[in-house]
Structures are given as structure tokens and as C-alpha cells.
């Protein structure tokens, strides 16, 4: 009896976490795929959208559509209000100090490229170093390689162990005086590893090295407080936190952003333009040239409100419970091997199945309505580290259930049967 009580997940918010009520907010979860109920386990690639986000997009285009910032007419003010309110919401969502530290970008990738071009490239010289880890997504590798090609700087990679965890001692050793910038993934999209970024930032700061955190896999799964982390830059994508595609956020400390040159030139990022001289606009507009994704930014605010309503701590607790259940269930499948066994893990499970190639698993379980990702997940160096060409990856969100884990297991058993 006592054991049963202990397995109950404690909820930290006053509102009880009701997965079925949450699921009813996501119409797509009711659809069928190949005649079977959709079991969507590809959340690390993108999350589904709740009705409030779809409504926000629809409302913008049906009722408020107008260009922002320059119009004196009613609709322009409404559109501007929606766009800027969203910035305020997101500022609170990640606990930034000032709203001007929230820059709207297309997504994580653009945020990293912005920092690479407007910040790092201007400060780094030939022979100096940029440090990343061995579990980065291609989007946190390639922009730095381009900087290195253009400046003669060197990209260094802090190694990971067989569990898929960063080797902290090695990382700390690599923080030499040559290192001018550190860029780290918060949660690995292929291994699920949650990196001890707060500690890693502290280590870098001890050497006065600024740090960017790639938070693409964090924002819809665990609490984010950029002031507590003390990161210098933090980037994330809206579509991985129940928001639209094509919108994301770059957070940067004002002291850095103010001294950075613009990423792109154009309208809205200027104060005044003559053919002789242009005066750039203040933050955050200096980095938002051209008409932005107004509908997307506004709807991203709705997505952050939605997460706040459910409570990120509730989501974290629920997903950790689901992760434990899924891990146990998958490990009970004969011949299944997991890639990534970090102590601190998010609800992402990469696996291999005996002789069945991940691609074949993906196709077969899709016929049962189960959507997972197969391939290298844009982390080819991780695959090389583990000596594998690809994995099958099930990645969970707050709307997934234990029943869906069971459906995944049944579909994997079917794949095994076909390949017996």
C-alpha cells in the first residue's frame, strides 16, 4: 500500500495535471493515420499546436492583419500590440531582465547564426578558439565552422562519455585563454541528455568567456530561467513549444546586444537613413529588419501563455514519469538497445533493434499510426561517436500517454515479427 502511494507523482501547482484535458486542446491528436489513431512521438522534431495557438493565428489574419510599428491606424496598433505583448510574455516566460533582450528570429538556427555573425565573428582572430560539445545539433556546429573558415579560428569539441554525458573535467580543461566563445546544447535532441549548463556557464565565465545555450529542446519540457543560468545568449524555436514554425527567440544580455552590429539591414531596424549615414534603431528592433513574422510571434505568445497555464513544473514531472515508464517498457523488448543513458535525461529515447534498420522500424510502425523519427537527427557526430549510422527516436511531449507507449511497444514487436 505504501509503495503505491509513493509512485504518485507529486504536483507542484495547484491545478491538477490532466493529460486528457490537455489532449482535447490539440485537435490533430484525434486524427487517424493509416487507419489507426495517431500516436505522435516525434516531438523533438516539432510539437503539435493547441487550439489557442491556431486561434491566435486565425484571429490575426482575420481581424488584426496589418503592418506593425509605423502605422497610426487602428489595425496597425492592434497588430503592434499583439506582437509586443508576445515579447513581454516571452520575457517573463524565460525570466529575462528586460523585454528588449528578446529578439524575434525565425528559429534556433537563425538565432545561432545571428550571434555567430554579429558577435563572435567580430571578436575572434585566427588561432583563437570556439568551444562546443560532442552532442551538438548541426545548427550549433555549422555556423561556427563558417566563422572559423572566415577568420582562421579553430572549432574545439568537448568530448562525451559512453552514456552520452559531457565529460566535465575535459570541458573545463579545454577552457584555455585561447577560447573566445562557448556554445552548448542544453538538451540533446538525439540522446535526451540534459547538460549541467549552469555549471558549464560558470566554468566558462571564470575565464571571462561568453556562452550561448541552444535551448531548442528545453522550452516545452523544463523550467527556463536565463538570469539564474546567467547565460549570455539563449536561443529557441517556437514550433518546438507548441507555437508556429518560422518564429523563435534569441535572448541576449543587453550589454552584449547593444554593442553588436546588426545582422541584416532594412526597414524597422533604423532610426534615420540618409545616403551618407544611417542610425540604427534601439534594441530589440536593431535585429529585426524587415516586416517580421507578426502572426507567428503573436501566436508564440499564446503558446507560452498556454504552457504557463499548465505549469512547466507539472509538465516536467509528468514527462519524467512517462520517460521512466517508456524506458522500462522499451528495455523489456528483446534485442532493443538504447543510445544515451545520461543520469539527467529529458523524454527522448534513441534506440536500435537488433538487425532491423531504424528506417525499416520507422516505416513499419508508421503503418500502426505511430510516428517516430529515424536517421541521424541532424547529429551525425553523435552517430559517429557511438559507431552507428542512425537510430530510431521516440520523443515525448506533455500530451503523450502511457497507452501510447504501449502502442509503440506493440508496433515494435510487429516490426520484429516481420524481420524474424
Amino acid at each position, binding site marked *: 500500500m505504501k509503495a503505491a502511494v509513493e509512485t504518485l507523482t507529486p504536483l507542484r501547482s495547484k491545478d491538477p495535471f490532466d493529460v486528457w484535458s490537455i489532449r482535447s486542446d490539440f485537435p490533430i491528436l484525434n486524427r487517424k493515420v493509416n487507419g489507426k489513431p495517431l500516436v505522435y512521438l516525434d516531438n523533438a522534431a516539432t510539437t503539435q499546436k493547441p487550439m489557442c495557438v491556431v486561434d491566435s493565428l486565425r484571429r490575426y489574419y482575420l481581424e488584426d492583419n496589418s503592418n506593425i510599428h509605423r502605422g497610426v491606424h487602428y489595425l496597425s496598433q492592434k497588430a503592434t500590440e499583439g506582437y509586443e505583448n508576445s515579447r513581454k510574455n516571452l520575457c517573463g516566460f524565460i525570466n529575462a531582465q528586460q523585454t528588449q533582450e528578446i529578439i524575434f528570429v525565425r528559429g534556433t538556427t537563425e538565432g545561432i547564426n545571428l550571434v555567430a555573425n554579429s558577435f563572435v565573428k567580430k571578436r575572434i582572430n585566427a588561432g583563437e578558439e570556439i568551444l562546443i560539445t560532442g552532442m551538438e545539433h548541426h545548427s550549433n556546429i555549422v555556423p561556427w565552422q563558417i566563422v572559423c573558415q572566415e577568420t582562421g579560428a579553430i572549432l574545439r569539441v568537448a568530448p562525451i562519455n559512453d552514456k552520452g554525458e559531457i565529460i566535465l573535467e575535459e570541458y573545463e580543461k579545454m577552457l584555455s585563454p585561447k577560447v573566445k566563445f562557448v556554445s552548448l546544447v542544453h538538451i540533446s535532441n538525439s540522446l535526451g541528455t540534459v547538460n549541467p549548463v549552469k555549471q558549464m556557464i560558470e566554468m566558462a565565465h571564470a575565464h571571462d568567456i561568453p556562452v550561448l545555450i541552444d535551448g531548442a529542446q528545453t522550452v516545452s519540457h523544463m523550467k527556463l530561467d536565463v538570469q539564474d543560468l546567467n547565460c549570455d545568449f539563449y536561443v529557441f524555436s517556437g514550433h518546438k513549444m507548441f507555437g508556429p514554425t518560422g518564429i523563435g527567440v534569441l535572448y541576449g544580455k543587453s550589454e552584449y546586444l547593444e554593442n553588436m552590429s546588426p545582422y541584416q539591414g532594412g526597414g524597422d531596424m533604423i532610426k534615420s537613413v540618409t545616403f551618407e549615414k544611417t542610425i540604427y534603431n534601439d534594441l530589440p528592433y536593431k535585429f529585426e529588419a524587415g516586416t517580421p513574422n507578426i502572426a507567428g510571434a503573436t501566436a508564440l505568445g499564446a503558446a507560452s501563455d498556454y504552457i504557463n497555464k499548465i505549469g512547466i513544473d507539472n509538465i516536467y514531472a509528468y514527462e519524467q514519469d512517462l520517460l521512466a515508464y517508456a524506458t522500462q517498457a522499451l528495455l523489456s523488448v528483446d534485442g532493443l538497445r538504447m543510445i544515451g543513458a545520461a543520469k539527467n535525461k529529458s523524454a527522448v529515447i534513441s534506440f536500435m533493434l537488433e538487425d532491423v534498420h531504424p*528506417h*525499416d522500424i520507422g*516505416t513499419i510502425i508508421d*503503418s500502426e499510426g505511430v510516428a517516430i523519427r*529515424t536517421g541521424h537527427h541532424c547529429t*551525425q557526430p553523435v552517430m559517429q561517436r557511438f559507431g552507428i*549510422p*542512425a537510430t530510431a527516436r521516440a520523443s515525448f511531449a506533455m500530451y503523450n500517454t502511457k497507452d501510447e507507449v504501449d502502442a509503440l511497444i506493440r508496433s515494435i514487436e510487429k516490426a520484429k515479427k516481420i*524481420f524474424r
Partner: protein
Amino acid sequence: MSELKSLYQEIILDHNKNPRNFKKLENANRHAEGYNPLCGDHYNIYLRVEDDIIQEVAFEGAGCAISKASASVMSSLLKGKTKEEAEELGKLFHKLVMGESDPIEELDRIGKLAVFSGVSEFPARVKCASLAWHTLRAALENKEHVVSTEK
């Protein structure tokens, strides 16, 4: 489910499990390497061509069941064919997996390649099936660079 059965036919599963001509050909005079960066499928194809006729075929590498079975079935069909005949067969195969031809009508010309007709129902898997044939073409032309499905 019936679509899935047509994709993973017994012949395909058998060629995946027991690939034919699965070795490096030591006396090959044509060779090419094929790679699908999206899923990591990776094969080397070796040919011995004499007087424009394919005398021997072998392949080695790793990948999904569809790509491996495709390479295996291909290798079992090419012996004795001219370069033109092999390329013609490659074109027929491409039409088949793209769903642009009727396997029943084409049966005389495609023979056991017909087992891959189910691939056309799975657009994401067409590249898996085609990799070996793309690589074959490169080998026949004796191209030395790696053939990629993504270019």
C-alpha cells in the same frame, strides 16, 4: 497493412537477410560508392566488365532492408548484360518505384524487380530502393566520387 506486406515481401526480406554477391570483388575494373546521408545507407558496388559485358557483380555495405535487398536483387540480374542493357533496366526500375509503370504490364522486361513495386506507395523509401542503381550507373561510368542521394 496490405501496402506494408507489398513493401516487405518475402523475397525482399530474404535478400536482406542473405544478400547475394555480398563481398568485395578483388578483380573488379569498375567501382563506385553510394551514400544516403539522410539514413546512413552506404554501399560499394564492384563490377568486372569485359568487352562491354558485365562479367561479375558484387557489393558490400550496410543499410536498411529495402536498400540492401535492392542491391542484392540488382547484383543477381546484371551478369551477362551490356552496359546499355543494365542502364535500361535501371530506368525501368526507377519508373517502377516511382509508380510510373505497371509491374504487370512490364513483367517481361523487369522480371523479379517487380517485387519492388510496393515501394511506390512509400515515397520516403524510394531513395532507399534507388541507391544501388544510382551507384551502379556511376560504376559503369567509372566515376570516382561518392554518389549521394542528396545533391
